[in-house]
């Protein structure tokens, strides 16, 4: 069963193509990671799926094409975690996670007890209960990251889109966040599409990688298949060695130019 499918997705900004003819099918529970240099179109694919930019072609959830007019329907099926989320400093943690229930609350109504139950469960799962009443401005970077994921979970959407989820975190929190997402994926059968810069981490967690360059898909497959030093040199312009660990982890190691 396809959880999410892209058919000929094309995104243009002011006449320039950011994404051209993107096709993909993900099954439920799969983790796809988009990699590629800056401007390759990774974020644009995610933003198009989240309905933030107009696109040509189609995006379908469980074989149902997303209706263009219904932001609510989309929000019930796709949860988007932006690269730099807006954090209103004097909003409380509870209120922030409550925002994730918006797609289920009627236009003029307030949240129901069911909504509150969902929030309680999410806060519990992400270990944020003790922060409930705290204001967002008092949280650390790692706590904020958990919080944003919590909000996305509150949407109870089968598809989770993560745009550079680890860019602002230290190595420890990077691991925590990705482990958390992986755990949730296994528990709840979430389908995940992420855009990432860190190639090693991308290879470590994703089932499949897609390398994008100037809006086109130029390589796809497992980490071993995509992360090759010639490929990286061609599309990233980077000089790197690729090392294969015993357990199958692919490690990308940038090389310094020879010292004189």
């Amino acid at each position, binding site marked *: 069963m396809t959880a999410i499918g892209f058919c000929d997705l094309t995104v243009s900004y002011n006449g320039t193509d950011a994404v051209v003819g993107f096709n993909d099918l993900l099954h439920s529970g799969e983790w796809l990671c988009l990699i590629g240099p800056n401007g390759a179109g990774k974020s644009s694919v995610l933003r198009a799926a*989240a309905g*933030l930019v107009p696109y040509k072609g189609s995006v379908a959830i469980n074989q149902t094409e997303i209706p263009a007019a219904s932001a609510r329907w*989309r929000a019930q099926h796709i949860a988007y975690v932006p690269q730099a989320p*807006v954090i209103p400093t*004097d909003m*409380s943690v509870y209120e922030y996670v409550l*925002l994730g229930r918006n797609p289920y609350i009627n236009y003029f*109504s307030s949240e129901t007890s069911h909504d509150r139950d969902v929030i309680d469960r999410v806060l519990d799962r992400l270990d944020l209960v003790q922060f409930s*009443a705290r204001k967002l401005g008092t949280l650390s970077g790692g706590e904020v990251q958990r919080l944003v994921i919590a909000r996305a979970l509150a949407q109870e959407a089968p598809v989770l889109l993560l745009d550079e989820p680890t860019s602002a975190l230290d190595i420890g929190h990077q691991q925590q966040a990705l482990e958390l997402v992986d755990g949730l994926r296994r528990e709840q059968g979430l389908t995940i599409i992420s855009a990432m810069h860190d190639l090693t981490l991308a290879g470590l967690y994703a089932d499949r990688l897609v390398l994008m360059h100037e809006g086109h898909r130029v390589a796809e497959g497992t980490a071993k298949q995509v992360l090759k030093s010639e490929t990286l040199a061609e599309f990233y312009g980077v000089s790197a060695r690729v090392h294969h660990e015993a357990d199958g982890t692919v490690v990308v190691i940038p090389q310094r130019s020879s010292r004189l």
Partner: protein
Amino acid sequence: MPTSVITTRSAGGRDKQPLSFALSGAVVAFMILVGLMIGPAGPQWWRIPAELLDHLPFVSLDSGISRADWNLVWQIRAPRVVLAALVGSMLSVSGASYQGVFRNPLVDPYLLGVAAGAGLGATIVFTLQRETTSSWIIDPLPLAAFIGALCAVLVTYVVGTAFGSVRSGTTLVLAGVAVTSMLTAIQAFVLQRNSDVVRQVYSWILGRLSSATWGDVRLILPYVVVSSVVLLLHRRLLDVMRVGDDEALALGINVRRVRLIVVLAATLGTASVVAVTGLIGFVGIIVPHAVRLIVGASNRVVLPMSMMLGAAFLVAADIPSRVLASPAETPIGVVTAFIGAPFFLLLLRTRDVSR
């Protein structure tokens, strides 16, 4: 599990709300009563509550108030106090809504051109021989101000959304600045050619409650009620919009539509209020900020509290307006400015104004 439930439930501060609302309601009622009791002339202050109580069933009190005095209180002072409450409430909830929908704390209800449009409409009427027009069947002054305000916002909206698919609030704000400048320039030109009405226009712009009648109250009541109800219904949506247009959209909010409705509703209410009282400044900015200092930034609470405390504020500000320089009036815009300026300095000192 039970412990965490209790923690999260009370974390929203929801159990504090009924108390805050009740308290605010009491403040408004008290302020209105005080407003009715104080004035530059008329009966002694204690006769008024006595007379009001006498009107209650089963209560019989002789307040000793004379017919003429009661007439003064009821025909002159009461409409003024009620109008102050309505205007203060409308401007405050409008300001709070605008601040929410544009995510900008410096925004006031006159932002998108309401002030300039109304001012121009009023100026044009004043230049057309006010003495004769004031006795027409429909007084053209509030009508022109109202239409002028609405047209200005319409132009702002068209200009602000004309350049491609723009969801950004900033563009609208900029368009509002442009339209305001344009209309103000036209107004200056008209005034220059009709310098004999400058004084009247200026005094209209400063804002006044001194000419309040029950007719004015009846005139604006439907607009204020409709506008306030629509705005209050959108409280929760404004809270969702606090995380920005993109994230709000991703959370299922039709940002363009919500913004349009909120702007329309707030403008309608503000335009009607401006039409009868001129441009009373500062209320729309100070009150929402003051409310946020007390109850936090959640629009769910800020909007209704702004309505109530805004009413109380303007009723209170109107008292020195009619008593301070008696037998002359101090324009209410001057009183609110005197309170507003130091308040802003205080705001800068004590708190991060960014959200």
